[in-house]
């Protein structure tokens, strides 16, 4: 079963929000709605003995995906071809049941950083699709000669990332873009983390070295 996700290198991320804007243009997201966020995890120590990082967050592509199980209409589903967790806007009734099932979402779907957002205009729930409309068959190793090459496409948040911090691919495929980055980080002994939450096994991985900051998940 494919495990498609983002892998994000927090040693690189500078918190610039370019991934948020790239996402909004690609997916036509209106003001006040978001598929992704960049949360500053503020320093915990006392100035000047401080460390911090920025945590980009979006749908964590949980392996057990409780949102799919909770959805009463079947609108939350996994792509039968590549296993990506998606929402079918045609069948979503906007009941918000999935918000309660998702540990990374605000209960109203309207407060950052929530990975699911309620689209008031359409009355449906929305979230990161890993730009499945571009990447459904991609291995996440971008073809720089043709960035529209579907076999190798990456989401615009990955392509445009101003720090080269984001990678995409199937973690069950060792040749995928995300797997290669993860393997290199493991080999270098860098910290690899997930945002732990009860009842879920998130696929999304974060790389953070101890020299840059202590991993504190989503912070306070």
């Amino acid at each position: 079963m494919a495990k498609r996700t983002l892998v994000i290198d927090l040693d690189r991320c500078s918190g610039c929000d370019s991934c948020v804007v790239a996402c909004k243009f690609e997916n036509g997201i209106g003001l006040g709605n978001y598929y992704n966020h960049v949360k500053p995890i503020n320093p915990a120590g006392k100035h000047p003995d401080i460390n911090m990082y920025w945590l980009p967050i979006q749908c964590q592509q949980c392996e057990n995906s409780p949102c799919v199980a909770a959805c009463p209409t079947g609108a939350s589903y996994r792509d039968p071809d590549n296993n990506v967790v998606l929402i079918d806007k045609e069948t979503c009734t906007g009941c918000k049941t999935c918000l309660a099932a998702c540990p990374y979402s605000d209960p109203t779907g309207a407060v950052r950083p929530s990975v699911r957002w309620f689209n008031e205009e359409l009355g449906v729930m929305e979230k990161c699709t890993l730009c499945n409309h571009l990447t459904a068959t991609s291995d996440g190793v971008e073809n720089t000669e043709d960035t529209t090459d579907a076999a190798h496409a990456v989401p615009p948040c990955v392509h445009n990332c101003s720090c080269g911090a984001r990678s995409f691919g199937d973690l069950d495929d060792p040749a995928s873009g995300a797997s290669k980055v993860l393997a290199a980080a493991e080999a270098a002994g860098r910290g690899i983390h997930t945002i732990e939450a009860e009842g879920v096994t998130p696929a999304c991985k974060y790389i953070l070295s101890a020299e840059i900051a202590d991993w504190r998940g989503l912070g306070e």
Partner: protein
Amino acid sequence: MQETTLTRRSFVKAAAVAGAAVAVGSTVAGCVDTGGSSTGGGAATTTGKAMYGSVCHGCIQACPCKVYLEDGVVVKIEGHPDAPTSIGSLCLKGLNQIHTCYSPRRVLYPLKRTGARGAENAAFERISWDEAVQLAATKIAEAIEQYGTYSFFCSVGGGGAYSFMQAMTMPMALGSPTVFEPGCAQCYLPRITEAAYMYGGADQSIADCAVLEPFKGLAPLEEAKGVSQDTKVIVLWAAQPSVSQTAQSGRGMAELRARGCKTIVVDPNFSPDAVKATIHLPVRPGSDAALVLSWYRVILDEKLYDEEFTKYWTNMPFLVNPETKLPWLATEAIDGYTPPADMPANTPVYVCVDENTGQVAALPFGDPATVSAEVNPQVLATATVKGLESKSCGQIYRDEAEPWTLAKAAEFCWVPEDRIRAAIDLYTSPLKEGKAAGIANGVATDMEETASQVPDGLMGLDMIMGYVNKPGATLTQNGPLPADGANPRPTMFWNGFGGMFGMMYGIGYEVGATEEANEARIAAIPEEWDPNGQLAPFMTQSTLWAMNQLLLDRLGMKNHRGLYNWCHSHIPSVREAIETGEPFKPRVWFDMSGNKFAVLGSAGAWYNAIMDDGVDFIICQYPMITSFQIECADLIFPLEEWLEATGASSFGQLNYAFPCPGIIHLGETVPNSVPSQRVVAAASAILNEKLDSVIFGATGQTMAELKLQFPLGMGVMGGSDSEEVEWAAQIASYSEVLGLGEGATKEDFMAALKDNHKAYNVTPPDQYWTYGQHLVKADDGLPMGFATESRKCEVYNQIHIKLSRTGFPYTYPREIGPIDPRVGTWGGDYSPICNVPVQKEAPEVANANGLALSDPEFPLALTSGRVYYFHHGTMRHAAFARELYPVPYVRINPATAAEYGIADGDWVEISSRRTQGTDYVHGTGIEQSYAGIKENNTKTAEPIRTKAYVAEVVAPGVLWMERFWNPESFDSTQSKKTGGWQQMNVNVITNAVDCNFNEVYGSYTNRGFAVNIKKSEKPEGVWTEPKEFAPFLPSNKNEYLPDDIGVLIENKALLTDIVAFPASTAEGGQ
């Protein structure tokens, strides 16, 4: 005056030295969309899908990108994967260009104000291009006729649509010396100029692409060629590339760090680069110079410096005459000394203490291997020369550093002592392996009274470390190495860029050439002006004398002479001239960029000067309506955004150059060079009609009369009067890589570029990444050395002494006497080394624990910096930026916040001495500054408000906030419109009135000044909720014009049907 010239004379012609075409009577053909096409200037296909390479110009850097169109409308932009530094990245400023280009705030047609000035009832009507040009020309001509040529002035700066060369040369073309730019003395001029003084090479600015070496060999394409990455240690001093140049140098820094490069970041703010730093020194705002001197103290005492380089390639061993403050020449210091026969006259011999003999000895320039056989110069030395106790430059530096022990610096700068020590050790460590580190110096110190001192100190550090012209260093030069033995020694020619204005106006010294050579060059200028002899009777030395008066008359030059390097005026002096009419009154203003009120210090004083004292007519050119236009503009010319502008950012990235065509075209927008070219031509035509009957005022009469007779080379330089010239340059640059033949048109160019992202030029690495320029043999058999008087790196900046006393090298052969002695911090002269002047704006620590300032009313230090979302004054209209960053959050430490009763997210009010006391008395500010009056009470504004971001990201006692403005304040939905520059704008509480101006550049204080803070309420007329920003989204409306005219592109149907913004984007929240 010679009567015979009257019939032939003309006021001015736009026949520039650069060969630009005469602008009289020309049209903007190719620029104005007259036929209903959506792509009149851009040459992109208008049907179906297409992709073109372009280059983002959302900040000062230039990220190559790919622009996707559908039926002529831009629907997507992404970073170019082959870009050597950005490597495919494109930041939110580049992505948001879609919302900028298609913004309802665009100015798409010439607009004329129809009512009184002021935002509240602002209204504009569309007029034709010909009407607009004629109106501007008439107003300028009337003022010149009535008041003289000095009544006209220009300005530029503030982000977007840069017109630097036009703003400098348009006033000169019309016989006026006045031009300013809010950057300049406050941004980059000090660093670039000090580098030129000190070694004649590239400076330490990353943002301005002077520092490129660290980003070499990062891109996969370059790594594949075997290009190495050599920077293993870099110091970011007052710079935050990850924020300010997000996708270019920011990406470069991320790649550098990922390859193990160690970084030292000196920044009061926990910026992203500080967060990732190996060592972060959170320096107290404004105290950098003391920190610099503490580094010198350790490095000199512990001999951590590069001994050979310091002894033989810098002036540190030179003994200095305490009376002249200049290094002794051997011919002065040693009786009967004659230089070696083979030593050229352009290469002076100085003296040092010979470490081997302990005696004063001549130190001739030359290959260290040769020179060291004769003399072993001592870096720290004192000796008696001609009866005067004379210290070496090194000793002078060491004495200045004496108070700044690590402990004292730690106390003064609020940085832990062990961290300063660790930073020095890391910075000096590469030398131990024979390698180089480098310092990158950012903009922050340009905005403080130490604008010249800090760059002097930081470049001097790299020089004594020998981190010059070496792999991995930041002081490096790019381009082919000079041929061996073929070139004269390097020289530096002053006034304008590469001495351009020096030649035009017959003024300026070529440093490194002999006095005889300079005399000969000046003597030959009339012939150079007039190669055919047509003007021979008139083009004389006395004419030149009067011509160079234009440069000498520039406001503020008496005291702040570093401004000569860019030929810009001292901004506070311009404001005072408007207020007082002294020494002359600027009356008609042509501004060539964005929001002056957001980017000028003491913005309230400027507003008052304009509104109270009167600027008769204000002409603007800009792609957008900002606070300045809505409040003040009488006439606005529409300019292109970068997606429309051919050649807008054609300066490349490292050794790569990418095509930059105008892809789309909206309304009647034009390239930024067009309005000035056309207006000068039209104003000249009006004035030429009156030449025999009108005396052109008093103050500018000399220049006007000269221009009447010598109309050569006085045109507006830079760009042209149409886009066709820019297209020709693009076609010439990329024809080969596009496979185009002779005579290719822009349509051919775009057809070849369509869906082709491989069309770019690359300079071979070995022709670009070069080192050891100073070691190459010159034609005199000696090493080339550097473009300074001594041919060495002048860590002791000896030009400063001459500059402050006579105006040398800029005003040569004129001497303009000494500066006001109250200005100079080195016994009345400009300091030749880094020193720590009295801090007036953020007074020094008052207590031993080092966490309090001494001004009881304003006990906090506010500093500033950029955020990712905007560049200068740009993009506050970009809805996708503002929903994420609606207000310029002020950063405050939790301890300070608690003391002031402020919680995270609270609205707060910030005050400074600009928001209290008595109203500013016009015209007294600069005198107060020079008199050192500290108890200023110059109220120019109300306190500003914003929200608090409470976190341990700044030290207790420090506030950090981005300057800001609120374009929503004059949205048509507001019940009471304001200019939007008062509520949240740091620049209304900064001091450009009576601060301690930097001595050399007149830089005023935008950072590190004393403020107070308290809890407050949300100000009127600002938006904070995401959906409130919906009126900023692209629509089919242009809010400054009636709907029937104000469409984004001429073909309404095309736009409505085809712009591929999903409904939720285009109309969300409406």
